């Protein structure tokens, strides 16, 4: 809801004690990681068996994924209804440099001092299903600080806040679909899905694309995280290959000497299958000349 000072005050609109605001009923807290892991593994094994029997692979998270407890009352029970996109849905909102300041892509210079933690560069390209760059589009990110804490009233994790880190960035993709952020590696943090639940370190990404049907919000993870098998949100993408698409690659060429480690992560946006027509093909070829 838009309110005065919204940028910094929206969190106050959600009361601490709100039963549906992230604080699960106490009986849920007795569920252990072992209980949750058994559920996660059973669903994964059933999926593997299905694949062997010829069931189609899944490329997106399951909306109905009970190990992520908050999804139980928040997933549609009916199948998504197929729709052919209409005129408005084949376009997308326009963002430009009027909307985003160039410095918003550096999350380490938003305050008076240096944020605590491990400075990193995260860069990559936003592409469509045909591998064409998605240029001039808005990318928004948000994340916890190095200690695993968000600046948010409802994040009561007793880890330090960093006065020099808000954890919010934006940029507009370049002509080659590229984006680039300088930030701090976020920490893992606990949450209340079950007893001793911890989220792997991640950065939230929001992308628009060139048609409305490409709109996506997702999370980028870091390679080699020991928490992957335990996390119901990451595991809600039940296919291993699909899950792997959310893990960035350490990139030594992107790493800056005596400054920051580099991670590369490309994002593929596909919306409707009407992404490539004869006319568009000619138009795209024309653009390249």
């Amino acid at each position, binding site marked *: 809801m838009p309110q005065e000072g*919204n940028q910094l005050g929206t969190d106050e609109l959600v009361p601490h004690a*709100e039963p549906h605001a992230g604080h699960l009923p106490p009986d849920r807290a007795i569920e252990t990681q072992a209980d949750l892991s058994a559920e996660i593994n059973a669903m994964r094994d059933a999926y593997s068996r299905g694949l062997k029997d010829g069931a189609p692979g899944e490329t997106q998270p399951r909306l109905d994924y009970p190990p992520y407890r908050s999804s139980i009352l928040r997933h549609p029970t009916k199948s998504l209804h197929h729709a052919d996109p209409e005129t408005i849905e084949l376009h997308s909102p326009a963002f430009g440099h009027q909307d985003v300041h160039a410095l918003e892509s550096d999350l380490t210079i938003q305050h008076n001092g240096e944020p605590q933690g491990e400075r990193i560069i995260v860069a990559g390209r936003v592409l469509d299903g045909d591998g064409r760059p998605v240029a001039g589009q808005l990318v928004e990110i948000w994340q916890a600080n190095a200690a695993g804490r968000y600046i948010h009233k409802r994040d009561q994790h007793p880890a330090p806040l960093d006065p020099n880190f808000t954890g919010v960035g934006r940029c507009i993709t370049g002509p080659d679909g590229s984006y680039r952020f300088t930030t701090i590696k976020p920490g893992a943090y606990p949450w209340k899905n079950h007893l001793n639940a911890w989220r792997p370190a991640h950065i939230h990404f929001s992308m628009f694309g060139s048609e409305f049907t490409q709109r996506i*919000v997702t999370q980028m993870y870091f390679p080699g995280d020991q928490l992957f098998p335990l996390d119901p949100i990451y595991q809600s993408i039940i296919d291993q290959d699909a899950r792997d698409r959310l893990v960035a690659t350490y990139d030594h060429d992107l790493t800056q000497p005596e400054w920051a480690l580099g991670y590369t992560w490309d994002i593929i946006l596909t919306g409707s299958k009407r992404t490539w027509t004869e006319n568009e093909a000619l138009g795209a070829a024309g653009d390249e000349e």
Partner: protein
Amino acid sequence: MNTTPKLVATPGQTIGPFYGYALPYEKDSELLAPGSPGSIRLQGTIYDGAGEPIPDAILEIWQPDAEGNIVSRTGSLVRDGYTFTGWGRSSSGYTGVYTFTTVNPGPTEPGAAPFISVVLFARGLTNRLFTRVYLPENEEALACDPLLGSLDPERRKTLIARRDPDGGLTWDIRLQGERETVFLDFQ
């Protein structure tokens, strides 16, 4: 011509609860300044499967202007109060209510039923959900709409807003239950 994308889409993930400093911004839900000529309020409540309002959801809308033109103007993040960009974002508040100030969308083709495109994000929702909200007027256009025509009458109702006495629109979203909103798959 091969219409199948060659690359597989990146999977979605939940927005989680802690987007408060990142996604909401000043005037995010004001496609037009409230009270300006032709402006209406679009509002509604987002409910979970227990019928409880969801206070930590975000809704985005994307629509043509009142004449049915699709605009491609920048300035949705830094609103000047005059430029209609067709796009807005509203977080649900304490009571699960979202609110936009916008205009009635016009038909993008002659005779087409006007609608507003909607995408929903929330904690607990592992991937975004697309849907549409149609204006209640012009029964003839609604009857000819390909999407509405493909739905049974009870489900069809979930996509049509109610006209309020003040000229605004009210449209609720239900993630589950008897009147579960129709959500769309464009693949």
